[in-house]
């Protein structure tokens, strides 16, 4: 996958230290990016003609506990002009925030809400950061590894 290596080089050239590393597995390339620069990297990935990642296929997170930083926010990108994929990963500490990419791809709105709902990661500058699958007032974030499978009892207020 030489063209993907070229992309990694372009990103490294543009952002230097903000690119923390990259790895390849089964022909898929992931680039680890410092979360403070994620907005710049995302905008660059979308707008630069050599990259052209104009679609945010998916946005999710992984709880890496007990490793630190605890969370990884994952951006699966797709480029229509070049028909290829790239994965960005941004490590986030527990109780830390990450800038929203809603302004780059509109699709990020609900996807970030879902990550906030299920992982409790706060996206800075998000226009409407509410829970999406669970109800308001729910205690806990189920996809965290320390959340028990059977759930924790919730106080439900009926109106």
């Amino acid at each position, binding site marked *: 996958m030489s063209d993907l290596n070229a992309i990694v080089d372009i990103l490294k050239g543009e952002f230097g230290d903000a690119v923390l590393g990259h790895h390849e597995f*089964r022909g898929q390339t992931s680039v680890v990016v410092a979360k403070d620069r994620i907005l710049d990297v995302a905008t660059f990935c979308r707008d630069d003609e050599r990259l052209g990642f104009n679609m945010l*296929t998916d946005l*999710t997170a992984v709880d890496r506990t007990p490793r630190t930083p605890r969370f990884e926010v994952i951006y*699966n990108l797709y480029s*229509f002009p070049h*028909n290829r994929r790239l994965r960005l990963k941004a490590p986030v500490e527990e109780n830390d925030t990450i800038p929203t990419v809603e302004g780059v791809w509109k699709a990020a709105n609900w996807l970030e809400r879902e990550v906030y709902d*299920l992982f409790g990661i706060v996206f800075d500058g998000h226009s409407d950061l509410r829970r999406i699958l669970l109800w308001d007032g729910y205690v806990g974030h189920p996809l965290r590894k320390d959340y028990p*499978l059977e759930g924790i009892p919730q106080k439900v207020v009926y109106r």
Partner: protein
Amino acid sequence: MSETKNMIVNMGPQHPATHGVLRVVLELDGETVVRAVPHLGHLHRGLEKLAETKTYHQALTLTDRMDYTGALINNLGYCLAVEKLLGIEDQIPERATVLRVCLAELQRIAGHLLWLGTHALDIGAMTVLFYTFRERETIIDMLEDVTGARLTPSFVRIGGLAADAPPVFFEKARAFVKEFPSRVDEYELLLTKNKIWRNRTEGIGIISQEECIQYSITGPVLRAAGVKWDLRKVQPYCGYETYDFEIPTGTVGDVYERYLVRLAEMRQSIRIVEQALDRMPEGPVMADVPEITPPPKETVYEDIGCLIRHFKLMSGGFKAPEGDVYMSVEATKGELGYYLVSDGSEKPYRFRVRPPCFINLQALEEMIKGRMVADVIAVIGSLDIVLGEIDR
């Protein structure tokens, strides 16, 4: 002059035209929609969390229960993702791959038929439902012959298929392939030039190509907007590049064109089924990778080695190498992706589904703002949502 104010209407969650338990809070100025806020989660079962506690073989059964109108395609996407993670894509037997394509396309037709019947019913054309369910029943019967289940087959397995298809399936499928195009003509006769249908659907719920890409919309909705993009063509899997079929597209991207695109897709799918039947090779339907795939059932009864292998796999599972993969297939609704993270154990460390319905639904407000309240029904129908997949 008396004071006026906007009215808030709760559409759903118990509303037949929201195709499940979707609740949309509409703010109306007269009959015009000012705001539309979908509220999700009524069917949230925590599938992703649950899958993290299951072995790779066990987690398969959960995929059926997302988009239950396209269960075989969900199975297929998941199995392809695991096979990619394990690096055994090349070892899948030819017959299994062709049968997978054949079943997936039949499932796609069944999914589109269900959509067409209910969408027409929403808009007020009741007859269509009886026509489409007649053919859907035929397909479901065929799938039952093969998989033993009508709705949640869990039939595509890691490494191949659970079993071979019986001869009766091929007979029925042949007959169906011959008959089906004339059935699509019947649906077209009922709707395509129907004045009421066109008035209700033309120019409604338009979304442009650029907006589609911004919202990550995929599937028939994207194609109706004029983007010739289908994962079966652009990033082929299961040998789709060797089949001869077209990608139907629209130009405007309204509800009517989504209908036309899906109808045309059914015709293309039946072509693929026919080609798959023609080339159906002989041979096994399960790869022989001792540490991953179960041995043939007959040998389990006779050979102690196979019995142990079967027992080990079914009780403990297999270990996957550490890493992460993203694999997606073209489901009936759009790009269905699986993002699997493995920590080297028998269970997926992270099991993420990229749900096409969830992502497509996000653009709902964009499509219905400023339109009549009756159009909301038409637009929701045209997105072809399944709440099992949105809420997971």
